[in-house]
Structure formats: structure tokens, C-alpha cells
């Protein structure tokens, strides 16, 4: 029992990383109809950025960790910065191709991903070597029903949950959320309503980038090592999570992320090499049974 609970906590933690990242894939797909293969690299930028921002605040460090307020500031800067980079990426690389065949944007995304991984690698102050991620706050362990849970785990899972709740609120209850839904359904009709489609797409990329930064911080807090390629693998897994949940659907991305995270942890516990495969096995099974994903609906065009 205690072991199962323990794995469940690990699963939730990894699941929130996947879910936050999957949201970016699914939102961008929903709104511009492209798979942003560079999205995983935004996670790396968020985590790597946090590493450097934390260094800037080194003077505030007490006993190797930071006060809560400073941690909040560090996370906020990382979110804003990563969001900004995501907006820039869209404006430079994707916007000029928006009305071109989809394959062109797809290949561009792969290219952007390679650039985002290898450009920092070439920078002398970043380079190819992994760095150890700083401990942001003092971890305290609790024993719950025999399972050991750390405060870092609780805070990270809560942070992910709050971020997702905020996103759900923004998309469904605010004016900009309504505009996002309108743009995702019909860009021409949306601009005839006076909606600035470019602005809405930029905001979507910004939100995706900011969520990816939170995701990166959650991941690096659990597995405290950052390097320029960390986003590639995590990105792939989160893309699987988004497809699993039904790409384009926000609740589906969250659900897919958690399913994948929890399944991977349990599978790893059974056999350490099996862990990575399980995500793809689940994906294949789901796609065979329900090709549009768990929450997705196959669109029947009404003429």
C-alpha cells in the first residue's frame, strides 16, 4: 500500500510535467493547426533559464535554498522569459508560413527545435554539459501512510494544478479565452468580428511557453539536472500525452499527461527499461480503440 502511494506521488509529479507541456502542444495545434515540435525545447529554456536566474539571486540564498518570495520571483521571470521566446519563435519562424501547406510549417518546427537545442550548446556560458539544478526550497519530508512525500513534491504538484486551473479559467471564462476559441474554429470569421488573430496567436504561444517553463521547473526539481537536450525527450512524451488525450482538447492534454506520468512510474517499478515504452503502448491501444484520443471527437464535416 505504502509503495503504491509512493509511486502514485512520483507519477503525479511526472504527470504534471507532461500535462503542462502537453497543454502547449494541444493549444498551439488547436489554434493554428500545426504541431510545434520545438515546444519541448521551451521546457529546456524554462529550466535552463531558471538555473541562470537563480544564480543571479545567489546573494539571497540562505542555507543553500531561497526564501519563498524569491522563488516566486524566479519562477515568474522564467515564465515571462520563456513565454516571450515562444512569442518570438512564432513571429519569426511560423507566422510567415501560416498560409503555406502544413508540411512546410512542420519541417520548420523540426528545424526550430534543432536550433533551440544547438544554439545554446554552442554558447560558451551554456555548453553541452549537464548542470545540477539548484534546490529552490528546503525539502521537508512527511510520512503519509508509510509513503515519504517531500514538500517540494507537494509544492510542484500544487503549482502545476493551480497553473492548469488558471488556464482553464482563462480559456473558458475570459474575453481573450473566447477569442482564442473563435480563432481556433475559424480565423477568417474571427477577424470579421474584429478579433486581432495575430495577437491571439501570440498570446497562445506566450501561455504555452510560460506553462512549459513551469513544467521545466517541476521536472528539474524532481530530477535536478539540466542540459540543452532535456526538452527533446520530454517533449516527445508530452506530445504523446496530448495525442492520447485528444489533440486540441485542453482537458484531454491534462488527462493524457497524468495517465502517461503515472503509467510510466509504475511500469518503471516493474521493469526499468519498460517505463519508456509503456507510454507508446498506451498510445497505440488508445488510437486503435478511439482514433481521436480520449477526449477528442472525430470531426464530421457538415456541408
Amino acid at each position, binding site marked *: 500500500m505504502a509503495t503504491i502511494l509512493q509511486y502514485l506521488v512520483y507519477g503525479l509529479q511526472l504527470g504534471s510535467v507532461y500535462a503542462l507541456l502537453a497543454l502547449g502542444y494541444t493549444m498551439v495545434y488547436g489554434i493554428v493547426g500545426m504541431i510545434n515540435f520545438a515546444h519541448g525545447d521551451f521546457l529546456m529554456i524554462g529550466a535552463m533559464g531558471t538555473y541562470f536566474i537563480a544564480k543571479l539571486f545567489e546573494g539571497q540564498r540562505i542555507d543553500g535554498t531561497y526564501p519563498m518570495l524569491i522563488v516566486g520571483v524566479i519562477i515568474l521571470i522564467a515564465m515571462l522569459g520563456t513565454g516571450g521566446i515562444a512569442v518570438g519563435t512564432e513571429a519569426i519562424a511560423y507566422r510567415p508560413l501560416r498560409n503555406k501547406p502544413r508540411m512546410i510549417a512542420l519541417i520548420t518546427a523540426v528545424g526550430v527545435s534543432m536550433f533551440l537545442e544547438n544554439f545554446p550548446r554552442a554558447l560558451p556560458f551554456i555548453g553541452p554539459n549537464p548542470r545540477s539544478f539548484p534546490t529552490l526550497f528546503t525539502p521537508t519530508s512527511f510520512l503519509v501512510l508509510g509513503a515519504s512525500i517531500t514538500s517540494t513534491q507537494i509544492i510542484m504538484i500544487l503549482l502545476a494544478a493551480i497553473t492548469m486551473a488558471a488556464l482553464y479559467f482563462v480559456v473558458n471564462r475570459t*474575453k481573450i479565452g*473566447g*477569442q482564442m*476559441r*473563435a480563432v481556433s*474554429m*475559424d480565423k*477568417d*470569421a*474571427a*477577424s*470579421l*468580428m*474584429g*478579433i*486581432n*488573430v495575430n495577437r491571439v496567436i501570440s498570446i497562445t504561444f506566450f501561455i504555452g511557453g510560460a506553462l512549459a517553463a513551469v513544467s521545466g521547473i517541476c521536472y528539474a526539481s524532481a530530477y535536478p539536472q539540466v542540459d540543452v537536450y532535456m526538452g527533446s525527450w520530454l517533449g516527445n512524451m508530452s506530445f504523446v500525452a496530448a495525442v492520447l488525450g485528444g489533440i486540441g482538447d485542453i482537458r484531454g492534454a491534462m488527462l493524457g499527461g497524468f495517465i502517461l506520468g503515472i503509467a510510466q512510474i509504475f511500469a518503471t517499478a516493474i521493469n526499468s527499461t519498460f517505463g519508456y515504452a509503456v507510454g507508446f503502448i498506451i498510445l497505440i491501444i488508445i488510437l486503435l480503440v478511439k482514433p481521436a484520443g480520449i477526449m477528442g471527437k472525430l470531426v464530421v464535416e*457538415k456541408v
Partner: protein
Amino acid sequence: MAMLEISDLHVSYGAINAVRGVSFQMDKGEIVALIGSNGAGKSTILRTISGLEHARSGSIKFQGTELTKMKAHKIVELGIAHVPEGRRVFPKLTVTENLHMGANLIKDKQVIKDSLERVFTIFPRLKEREKQAAGTLSGGEQQMLALGRALMTNGSLLMLDEPSMGLAPIIVEDIFRIIRQINESGTSILLIEQNAFLALNTASHAYVLETGRISMEGPSKELLADDRVKAAYLGA
């Protein structure tokens, strides 16, 4: 001064020249129709006016403002409402949510409420289906919703692209009665129709488009009586 003035407009899609040197104008309060067969360039003209397509050359002036270099969402602000071909309602939003999208640029809550009430008075059917997703409405209801949504923008010029397309004759009659009613309350209307008979009976003035050029123009009554128009578009 004319409300809308288009001069020597050229629009192309790649190598295809869809509109080649079209000039026309309309005054405030008028209903003007553009008629012509499929592919004559009618929709392209409307899409270029509202900024969805870009002109290769020529000018479009609306109340003195040049539109050809403006973004679509800015053109709506000037007061041009466009009901696009195929209605293009937001299928997963409810009827009310669709109508609220039309009021996207309006800040004053009272104005939005009044416009909503006006739309529901014009289209009681929409009121009945308030909470229904737009994608589940019938074609006629979707056309009403598209019209209502355009009215929510409170524009002074309403452009309609094939409002009769795919609808039963009895519903078409209804829609056109409402179009005249909207015009009587002060909104100018630029109408595109394949059904030339209907268009000429609604508009005061009409232009006939043929492969991207205006081939004939005049008061609708004269065109209705014209032998060439009769032969080509009225099936007489």
C-alpha cells in the same frame, strides 16, 4: 461623397487574376447588388473590402478612409460588417456566444444588451435556440445567426455573400424580407447573389460581373428588363 468607392481594383491568387480593374461605388442607405456567375470574382471583391484578401492594386475608400492597406480587424472597427460565404458561424459556440463574438469590439455593456435584444426581435428563432451549439442549427437558422452576428457589430455597411445559398425558397423569402427591413432601419447593404432575379428585386442599383470585370451596370429595374441580363442570368 459616396460611402464606398472602389476604383480600378485588381486582386490575384498567385497567377490567377480574380478581379481585374473593377470600379464601382455606393451611397449611404442604398442596397447595391453584385451579380454574376460562379467565379466571376464577387466573393473576392467582398473579401478584399473586409481585408481578408489583399489587393494587388487599386483603391477601396470607405467614408474617405483607404482600406487596401488595413488589417481585417481594423476594418470592422470602421463599421463594415461582412457575412461571409457559407455563413461561417462558430460551430462549437452557442447561439448567444456567437452573437457576443459579433459585439467583440463594443465596450458598453448596455449597447451589447440592446443589440442582442434587437437581433432576437428580428430573429425570434435565434432566441428559441439561444443555448444551442451553432453547428447543430439548420442552414436557415445558421444564416440568421450569421446575419445577427454581423448586426451585433453595429456597422453602417453590411456586406452579404450569397445569403440564399443552400436554403429552401420559403426561408430565402424570409431572409430577404429581413434584409430589406435591416436596410430600412438605416444600414447600407452590399449584396452578392447568384440568384439574379432575387438580387435585382432587392437592390436599387446593380453591377454585373464577368470574369473579374464589370460588364454592365445600372438601376436594378433597367437590368431586369435588359435582354442580355435576361438571357444570361434570369433564364428567360
